[in-house]
């Protein structure tokens, strides 16, 4: 509960930076990701944390395919251990691939991974994607090519956080 609330506060700070500068400070994204990994480890989500560590290293190596194969193997193994953990791992892997292909910003991926690890479910992606779609439609109507996605990440996480109380 407290961890989720702290995450929302950090995401709000990231949203402000994103709206102002289109960039989020490394200290903020790294702090959130490190905290989320530590929180996930305490909640036995070691497979997604291992995957995040593997992907951090994979981004620097030439032999990406080998690391990617390792990541896919970890995800596949996670599916057999517990489907929910496998979905979390698969989601983190997918967002990293989108970053590698240049479709997502690095800060977006780090904050998305942190939100998934702290909420411990990939279902948090549903409100984030929905709000991202609405943001995309509005941007299309205003003839803009790019959107600050951290706004969707922050508001989607907030929506998922408060939704049980309504």
């Amino acid at each position: 509960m407290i961890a989720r609330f702290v995450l929302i506060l950090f995401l709000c700070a990231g949203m402000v930076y994103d709206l102002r500068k289109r960039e989020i400070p490394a200290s903020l994204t790294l702090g959130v990701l490190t905290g989320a990994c530590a929180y996930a480890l305490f909640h036995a989500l070691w497979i997604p944390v291992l995957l995040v560590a593997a992907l951090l290293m994979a981004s620097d190596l030439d032999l990406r395919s080998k690391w990617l194969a390792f990541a896919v193997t970890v995800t596949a193994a996670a599916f057999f251990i517990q489907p929910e953990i496998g979905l979390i791992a698969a989601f983190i892997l997918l967002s990293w691939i989108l970053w590698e292909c240049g479709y997502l910003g690095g800060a977006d991926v780090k904050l998305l991974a942190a939100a998934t690890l702290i909420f411990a479910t990939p279902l948090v992606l549903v409100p984030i994607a929905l709000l991202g779609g609405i943001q995309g439609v509005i941007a299309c109507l205003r003839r803009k090519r790019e959107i600050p996605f951290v706004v969707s990440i922050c508001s989607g996480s907030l929506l998922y956080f408060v939704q049980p109380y309504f």
Partner: protein
Amino acid sequence: MRFLKQNRGIESTEVALIIAVVVLVGYGAYRLLGSNIAAIVTDIAGRI
């Protein structure tokens, strides 16, 4: 590390729309077929 240094917080509108459609279709399929898929996965895991 390259991934840690990259702090861009921006995304193209097309990608946001594609992600929204894919996630919503996936979630809809999960709500419709989730219990059946879970039973099949549990069955396979049990066999292994």
